[in-house]
């Protein structure tokens, strides 16, 4: 069980944070293009899912799965989008993403007067706390299953 990588986007589409741990294959395009692609795709999927839904919408888009990896999505009421790619043994990461938001993002970015909210996050403290947290999760291991 492992975590491959992690993105945070704000409500305007700016990528505030990107971190990877065990990513074996790169996407072949530049990082900026990858972020734009990711954000655009999520925006479209979210609106598609809500539109086509045959019943009342509760949470909307949660995740998608392929035979090798799963992409988890969590959006906060303030429009911040947290995305995590894990392998298939991970289960629901919604609580993990929520915890990252409340204990790491809010503590070390929102409460940091030197971090501007709509610019990429430069605080090293945030990055080290995020890294520490991800590595401490039971889902994270260095061998790919």
């Amino acid at each position: 069980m492992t975590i491959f990588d992690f993105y945070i986007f704000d409500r305007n589409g700016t990528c505030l944070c990107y971190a990877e741990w065990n990513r074996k294959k790169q996407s072949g395009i530049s990082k900026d293009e990858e972020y734009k692609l990711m954000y655009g795709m999520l925006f479209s999927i979210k609106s598609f899912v809500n539109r086509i839904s045959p019943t009342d919408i509760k949470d909307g888009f949660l995740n998608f799965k392929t035979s090798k990896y799963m992409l988890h999505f969590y959006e906060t009421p303030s429009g911040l989008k947290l995305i995590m790619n894990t392998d298939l043994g991970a289960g629901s990461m919604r609580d993990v993403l929520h915890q990252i938001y409340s204990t790491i993002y809010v503590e070390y970015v929102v409460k940091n007067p030197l971090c501007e909210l709509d610019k990429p996050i430069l605080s090293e403290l945030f990055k080290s706390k995020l890294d520490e947290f991800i590595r401490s999760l039971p889902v994270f291991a260095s061998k790919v299953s």
Partner: protein
Amino acid sequence: MADEILFELLHMEIVGHLQRSSQKDEQDQCIAKLESIGFRIGQSLAERFTRDCSRFKDELDTMKFVCKDFWNTVYKKQIDNLRTNHQGVYVLQDNRFRFLTHISSGKQYMEAAPKYLALPCGMIRGALANLGVNCVVTAEVSTMPACKFQIQIQRG
């Protein structure tokens, strides 16, 4: 008691606002303004907190009050270390200063740290002034989030 986050956010914004609304060559005035805001806050806080206490025996006692009760009420913790040379200079060391813990743990953002310590310095000076101790308070940071406040008593 109101949530602690309110004080932290308000302080963050006061510092940010003073910085944004001052001209390029008036940066030092920002620190002075913050210190005088803190002075006034400290004066009133000292009145409020010592309502039920008896008079302090001596200067050292007043310092201990600052370290324990005052720090506890404002920052929800006590000072970690108090040193003195018994000649009017006291050094208060806080290893996890509330306003600095969320900024960095190490060397990043070091240049911005003094601005966030100006108001607390003023608070200490104001509280002590109202308790009858005139002094000069400065702060220094070597590694975040630990910081040292140096208090120099003015005599005569």
